[in-house]
């Protein structure tokens, strides 16, 4: 045990001697969470749209005002001919054109029905889709107001309750994701680099020849990083609470424990990477190239997993970040206890054990 403590002490020397890395290690996650917490949103805001109003009557005017007044859209241009639509898209930043049919009000009164075309520049299909949905939502609201006084026969009125995030803030969606990505990448990178660094410098051999057992060497190298990551996690959670007003509905203790578990999972992944790479360069390329995009894209951080093609949904199961994001959202926003997230917790635990076991196996193979 004494040997082991001496070993950990040495790791701390390494970390604190390299002030630049230390600064980066703590400074960057803070900068990133601040930046992304504010900047990343899948809402739309102030999207430039153009109007083609073939009726120019009171109803269309009212609708246009409604749309223009929303924070989602700003009306950049009013055009008069349908042939102009193409040039509007090609030239400017206009993402959508609303085309009101002729005699809009009249048709609404006579046929109780009138039509608006929502033409979007679908080169960015995601934004096009979102714009269409937002316009639809505004129009639905407007219809409800129009129909308010009419007592229609046989009508079902849905009363919708948005739970866990009633104001539909996208910060709630993204802060857990940003936190996950930062913790995962920093932890995995740090361990894989610090272990391969000893390999590259030749000190690993000396350690292996010493009576320290290989797993003691590895654990000893990892423990200081657990502390660093925990500090990182605490800072990130504090920022989430105080800067982004993220609620912590559930138990802070549970949140802490789950975070520690996820940090250990990430460190175990880092260990695994270090056992299969001989140089720091390889380790870094694997941790960065191999982890960054899959974690961003397949974890449910930005894109909903349930909308992905089936094979990808299956692949997403092996991304540890996915499970931690579920856990984070559940504790922070839903306020649930372990009884609701034991499955995800077990999966992370299983992954950790798997990474560790595989590392031990690979380690043995390396020593032949």
């Amino acid at each position, binding site marked *: 045990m004494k040997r082991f403590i001496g070993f950990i002490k040495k790791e701390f020397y390494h970390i604190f001697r390299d002030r630049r890395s230390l600064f980066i*290690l703590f400074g960057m996650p803070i900068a990133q969470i601040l930046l992304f917490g504010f900047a990343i949103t*899948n809402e739309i805001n102030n999207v430039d749209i153009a109007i083609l109003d073939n009726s120019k009557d009171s109803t269309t005017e009212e609708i246009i005002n409604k749309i223009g007044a929303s924070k989602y859209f700003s009306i950049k241009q009013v055009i008069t001919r349908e042939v102009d639509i193409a040039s509007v898209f090609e030239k400017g930043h206009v993402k959508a054109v609303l085309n009101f049919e002729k005699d809009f009000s009249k048709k609404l009164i006579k046929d109780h029905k009138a039509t608006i075309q929502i033409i979007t520049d679908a080169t960015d299909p995601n934004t096009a889709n979102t714009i269409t949905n937002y316009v639809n939502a505004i129009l639905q609201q407007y219809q409800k107001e129009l129909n308010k006084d009419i*007592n229609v026969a046989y009508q079902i009125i849905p009363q919708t309750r948005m739970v*866990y995030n009633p104001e539909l803030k996208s910060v709630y969606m993204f802060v857990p994701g940003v936190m996950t990505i930062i913790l995962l990448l920093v932890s995995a990178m740090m361990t894989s680099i610090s272990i391969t660094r000893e390999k590259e410098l030749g000190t690993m051999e000396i350690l292996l020849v010493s009576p320290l057992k290989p797993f003691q060497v590895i654990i000893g190298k990892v423990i200081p990083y657990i502390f660093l990551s925990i500090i990182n996690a605490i800072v990130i959670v504090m920022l989430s609470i105080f800067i982004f007003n993220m609620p912590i509905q559930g138990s802070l203790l549970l949140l802490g424990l789950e975070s520690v578990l996820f940090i250990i999972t990430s460190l175990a992944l880092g260990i695994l990477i270090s056992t299969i790479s001989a140089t720091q360069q390889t380790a870094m390329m694997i941790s960065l190239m191999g982890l960054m995009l899959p974690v961003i894209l397949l974890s449910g951080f930005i894109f909903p997993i349930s909308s992905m093609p089936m094979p990808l949904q299956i692949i997403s199961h092996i991304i540890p970040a996915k499970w931690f994001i579920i856990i984070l959202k559940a504790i922070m926003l839903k306020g649930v206890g372990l009884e609701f997230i034991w499955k995800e917790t077990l999966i992370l635990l299983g992954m950790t054990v798997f990474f560790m076991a595989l590392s031990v196996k690979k380690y043995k193979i390396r020593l032949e």
Partner: protein
Amino acid sequence: MLPIIFILPLLQLVILSNAATFEVKNIKFGYIDNDRSSTSRALIEKFNASTYFNVLTDYPTQNKASAAMLRGEVDVVMEIPQHFSRNLQTEQHNTLGIIINAIDGAAAGVENVYITQIVKSFNKSIRTDLSQISDAQIQPITIETIPLFWYNETLNYKTFMVPGILVLLVTMITLFLSGMNIVREKEIGTLEQINVTPIKKSQFIIGKLFPFWVIGMALLSIGLIISKLVFDVPMVGSLLLLYLYTSIYILVVLGIGLFISNFTDTQQQAMFIAWFFVVIFILMSGLFTPIESMPRWAQLITEFNPIKYYVEVMRMVMLKGSDLMDILPQLIKTLVYAVVMNGLAVWSYKKTT
């Protein structure tokens, strides 16, 4: 190392391009049917028939449904009240409880629109079924919307994502390799040896970076072939123009890499910094989330994001067929960026040695 440089990125291109969609579908839908009448069943059937909803479970009580939502098993719960069918006939209207998991606010909004549309169409169908008199006066007003998706009618997000993800991969590989390269020589000690040779610094730097430039271009080429073969992404514009832009763009990235390399002592520091910038570049490139929705100060930051320009150019040239004049602003900005970054890099290299 070679598999990491080529196979890993290309594999990701093929797999991950499928992931990046904001479409909301396969919504996990559950219901509590307190009425169990033919009307309530017909309503549920409406949801079942919709391609957006996966009708999953029939929950006996609201508590069960809430618990399921807490467990994440269901995203939308509809509660059909008791005497739903009877009330509809006697009182001619009725309410329906809908609970939506709104953690993903944008998706929740979309789900709400879908639900409203389905209920509306259900209203219409029961009216024709139940009411004998079709009195036009009490018909509710409907504003019908017809969505038209120009340039990409089927909302194929892959043609949109493939070029973007290719951009990310080319950038990441070239940045990481160049960022690590010189600092690696510093750490191992070979840099001193090079500094005592008569080679000029500019020659040395070009010699160091040229292989990465070639790797970047090769990655682009293979990536383009894959985009065509696997995803059938159109190549509307000029391939030559794309290569011209890319050749300048990679210089920007290499300049940044070199700059980082010069200002760090260890590979570890270099990689942390490179990672920091790559994550910012990626998430603020407008590829995954729209730039227009960011706050103004964040939009200003994106002006300094080379990936943003490359993504724009890639899409404009490949998908819209833009020509040299169209991409001129991006081209000039990138060129300036390249000159500044490489100038800084060479300058800092002189300073550190």
